[in-house]
């Protein structure tokens, strides 16, 4: 499953709506509640763990991808 598909599934939107620019400011479905669900789903799927500060910082597609890269996750 791609990162875009994972985000789309959790936010319950079409995969085509998730773009490089997508963030909590550009997608209404990316609200505070879904954000926590999204982080938990990413942790489970990629077998990583985020700290509290990291969870708060993961507010966009790019930030998530960069954080996963930093954690040596192969996407």
């Amino acid at each position, binding site marked *: 499953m791609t990162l875009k598909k994972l985000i789309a599934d959790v936010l319950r939107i079409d995969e085509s709506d998730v773009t490089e620019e997508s963030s909590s400011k550009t997608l209404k479905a990316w609200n505070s*509640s879904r954000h*926590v*669900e999204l982080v938990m*789903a990413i942790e489970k799927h990629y077998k990583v763990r985020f700290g509290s500060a990291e969870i*708060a910082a993961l507010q966009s597609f790019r930030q998530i991808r960069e954080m996963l890269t930093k954690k040596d996750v192969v996407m």
Partner: protein
Amino acid sequence: MIAGVFWLLPIGMHSLPEEGLYASCIGELEAAEINAYQRNSDRRLAGFSRIAARVAASTIVEDRVRPNEWAFSRTTAGARLLRAPSGLSVNIAIADNEHILVIYATLGHSVGVDVELWERPSGWRDIAERFFSKPERDLIQRFPDKKSSDIFTILWTGKEAIAKASGAQLVDYLDVSLIGPSVKCPYTLQRKGATYEKWKIQWLDIGSNLVASCCATGGSHRIPEIMSCDWIIDQLSFLENM
């Protein structure tokens, strides 16, 4: 003036005004926030929710301030406010989910709202285990599956409402306990075992598989009024003649 309003607005895309229809009502910063949304449906809902919030604020002050005179602002902590040119301000909270928009507005008290589906995602037990306080986890585990899921949802929406009222993100408030020092005092919020903040919280099963929570630092909760989008738009009809 009245203490506050708590409105439930059933919404459908067909009933929402087109983008830009009430642009004269919305300031530049707000417009930038709304226009940042990728999807037309998100922009329309975000625009309409801000219009409805203005009408709610005008209702509280018995129309002494017109809806287009309010400007969105934030407290130093980040919670939403509507300010009139006179300096008068109304605390405002907005939430939406599926086909419901919730507006809660008061004078003089911080307020927050959230609306969520009763159905929780499959990972809800992991979320509770990781973030919720021990008394909350104990309460969830005390009940069979469906009931415990409902209790999780109730606690979750309460935390989200308080986070909004505080101008924070949910992730900053997941670790607070909604179960106070006494079961008889469930509306006392305990944060990290040290600080207590007093909140009044109320949960409402609003139908359509949705639960809403509202919280305030004081005042009395009002019975929610079910409003219609058409009524909100009618309140703004004078703008079209400006």
